[in-house]
């Protein structure tokens, strides 16, 4: 049984907890809309207070994603973004912000195409702390976990509202860094309100997860969603589409994108402070 070692992700959660805060995990699609602009956008997340930054390696067929992230993936691919380019960007970011853990989100086929061991080694060398692969359930993940473990990369698995208890235990046992709780039935994308499922799922999972931190994602777009998650006992909130949407909406104005991302991140981050 792999122990939940104190990786940079785990110690980040611990550190935040000791300051009575949850983690804000902020997502952007790598290389989108263009490499140079992307780096400025990530800087905006960091300056806005993101605790962990999640970067997508775009895939042509993102079945877990809604229209917002689909369009950013397509746009990024159209500009010629490759896994190599995204990992290179990670290396730059981790150089500027060594205290912010980086997480890669991608689908299984690009990882397989690079080769499991090679991918994990490159990720680690680029300063990446953990990987999320939404179409890789724990049952199919033996070789993947072995490669990640060997290279000291966290395997962040997902759990859904309908995951059975037997499987949930298995998922928790094989997760390192944190557990990614899918808070609703559906794909990624901003929703107006937080689903009731999100709150009840966090409470349920919390009973079984022990020391493994839980971060909830999918549909989390507003500060009040984040604070409700924190109240329910989540250790972190993952926000993706609500940020990517700001990129989508300001394609002609990169400076406005940076401003909007920074403002949004600050608002979301403020909601992770429990005593605020």
């Amino acid at each position, binding site marked *: 049984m792999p122990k939940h070692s104190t990786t940079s992700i785990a110690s980040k959660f611990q550190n935040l907890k000791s300051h009575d805060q949850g983690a804000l995990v902020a997502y952007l699609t790598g290389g989108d809309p263009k490499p140079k602009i992307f780096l400025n956008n990530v800087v905006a997340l960091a300056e806005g207070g993101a605790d962990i930054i999640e970067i997508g390696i775009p895939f042509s*067929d993102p*079945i877990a994603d809604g229209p917002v992230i689909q369009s950013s993936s397509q746009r990024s691919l159209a500009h010629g973004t490759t896994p190599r380019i995204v990992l290179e960007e990670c290396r730059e970011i981790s150089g500027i912000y060594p205290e912010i853990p980086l997480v890669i989100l991608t689908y299984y086929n690009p990882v397989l195409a690079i080769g499991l061991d090679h991918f994990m080694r490159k990720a680690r060398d680029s300063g990446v702390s953990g990987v999320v692969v939404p179409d890789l359930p724990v049952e199919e993940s033996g070789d993947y976990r072995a490669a990640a473990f060997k290279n000291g990369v966290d395997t962040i698995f997902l759990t859904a509202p309908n995951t059975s208890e037997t499987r949930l235990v298995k998922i928790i046992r094989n997760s390192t860094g944190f557990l990614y709780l899918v808070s609703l039935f559906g794909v990624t994308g901003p929703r107006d309100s937080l689903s009731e499922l999100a709150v009840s799922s966090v409470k349920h999972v919390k009973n079984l997860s022990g020391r493994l931190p839980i971060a909830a994602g999918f549909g989390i777009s507003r500060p009040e969603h984040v604070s409700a998650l924190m109240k329910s006992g989540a250790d972190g909130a993952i926000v993706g589409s609500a940020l990517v949407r700001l990129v989508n909406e300001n394609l002609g104005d990169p400076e406005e994108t940076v401003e909007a991302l920074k403002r949004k991140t600050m608002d979301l981050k403020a909601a992770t402070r429990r005593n605020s």
Partner: protein
Amino acid sequence: MKDRGTKLGQRPVGKFGRFGGRYVPETLMEPLGQLEAAYHHYSHNLGFRKELRDLLAYYAGRPTPLYFASNLTRRLGGAKIYLKREDLLHGGAHKINNTLGQALLAKKMGKTRVIAETGAGQHGVATAMACAVLGLKAEVYMGSEDMERQRLNVYRMRMLGAKVHKVESGSKTLKDSINEALRDWVSNIDDTYYLIGSVVGPHPYPTMVRDFQCVIGREARRQVLTVEGRLPSAIVACVGGGSNAIGIFHPFLHDMEVELYGVEAAGKGIATGQHAASLVAGREGVLHGMYTYVLQDQNGQIETTDSISAGLDYSAVGPEHSHLMMTGRTKYAAVTDAEALDGFKLLSESEGIIPALEPSHAISYASKLVKRYGSKDSVIINLSGRGDKDVETVAKALDY
């Protein structure tokens, strides 16, 4: 002789060698487990089996004939050519074998809403029919490009009471329709059944769809033994996702003297890169929940495909075909658009049967293959569908 083909409901396994599996978002793991259990239960249930048998016989029109194509045989010289006439089924293609089976299962599972993807529209039409007759609501995802190319099938689906969702994402073809159907399913798992149209997707679909399509091969095996008194030398079928091929191959898998040939779409030619030959020109990877041969670039991005036949226009292939290729039991080849059109003409003019463009690939390949055999041998071509849907495309291509 004893029928050694796969029986409906033989205990399913999720992998074919290293292929297959279940690579899906976590939310789908539970519904797939429920589907597997329900399928296992009902495929052993005598009532279910009788209901399906009756639907196949009296609604769909089974058994279909094994027709001796004497003119074609004379014209080509070599083995006797038999056609398994799936084109005579209700709806005009083998697709109904699977949609009746799955729609009946959906109903037994208490689902009220059925979603499906379709490329050429044949599976969409077959889904709409099965849902109409069984009283289920049908919604079909179809790429906007395919809707344009196959307008008649869009009308048919609507007339049958199905709702057609236009898919504008990605390449706007079959693979994107599957993506959208999966996204829909993740969002509506309580009342919705996802009715996949080929031997693709996460376990249990490749096994379940194969079992429903094996009726083709079980009949063909019985029929050829009756008329010929011996097994055929070869069987030829086209392969997109591969459901008609696996359906006719599977009951012959243990008959090692029967050669099995799957024919993929070489489009404008393999060398041009504009084709849909996943087995012949792809690499191993994961798409739509399965580990299989996939057309992809060096970074693992899925490539778009090209074929005159919308039904073969798919970037991956059923995982069992990948396994059969690895073991060497089945051989796979690819045939270009131009060659498929030759096959189309050949059968239309020599037998008065207009085939769909998909099996025209098999006809084209078989027209060369039969010459390698003697006149006492026989070769079966799976005529998986009729060509009404393709007359416009062919008229344009051949300048009628």
